């Protein structure tokens, strides 16, 4: 089994806010991330799929295809957007790095499974070079 990873970047704005809480509690828990005017990051998305290399092509998957899946399913929705306002899955949940990794997984996993060549095994999202989260499809 080989793991193959493709990287892409997107730039988005967001803020952290839980509508069920008071403003004070939001500010206390989320600190500067709770500024309702938002702030932004250059995110890096790393997508890892695992599978056996095709005996003819030597590919686990065609990287161009994986790049297109990431572009179509994630980047076209997230890049240069305000995640809280413009991306439906973050209307009710906080767009933390953890939740972005899970949401990106949910967007791509059906497409990758449908193609039948490899299994999505990991989505990692870097918010900065020093802060990242990953999701491996675990409950």
């Amino acid at each position, binding site marked *: 089994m080989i793991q193959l990873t493709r990287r892409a970047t997107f730039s988005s704005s967001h803020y952290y806010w839980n509508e069920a809480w008071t403003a004070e509690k939001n500010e206390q828990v989320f600190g500067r991330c709770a500024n309702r005017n938002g702030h932004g990051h250059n995110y890096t998305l790393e997508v890892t799929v695992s599978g056996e290399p095709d005996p003819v092509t030597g590919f686990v998957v065609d990287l161009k295809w994986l790049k297109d899946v990431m572009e179509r399913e994630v980047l076209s929705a997230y890049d240069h957007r305000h995640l809280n306002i413009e991306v439906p899955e973050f209307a009710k949940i906080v767009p933390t790095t*953890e939740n972005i990794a*899970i949401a990106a997984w949910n967007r791509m996993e059906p497409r990758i499974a449908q193609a039948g060549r490899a299994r999505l095994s990991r989505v990692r999202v870097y918010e900065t*070079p020093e802060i990242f989260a990953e*999701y491996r499809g*675990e409950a």
Partner: protein
Amino acid sequence: MKAYFCRRYMLSASHRLHTDAMTAEENRTAYGKCNHPHGHGHNYFIEVAAAGQVDSETGMVVNLADLDMAVRKIVLDRFDHANLNLDSLFATQVPTTENLCRAVFGLLQPALPAGELEWVRIEETENNFFDCSRTEV
């Protein structure tokens, strides 16, 4: 859902690889320039990964500010700008990055503010790094 939240920190420390269990000649052979008598230093990058359920209210596995505080108190304040050989952890073991990595894992594991410590990676230079994970301590 279970996710992993990871943060990289840097600390600068000196060390010397040397053990009294070997002769001076054997130390020089085993450790090469890392055995030079007055030590040398590195900028160590320390990656800390917490695993756990994403909290439905906060969207977080662990609050970054709490994680930073724990790592600062337990790891950075102790080792940053210090000589590792003089730390009590290395009284009876050589301060290789393997041993440092396992030691940092052991120090942080009981102190994580939320989630479970999944792995610690220490990069000694940009060309070498060491991983210690929960299943391999």
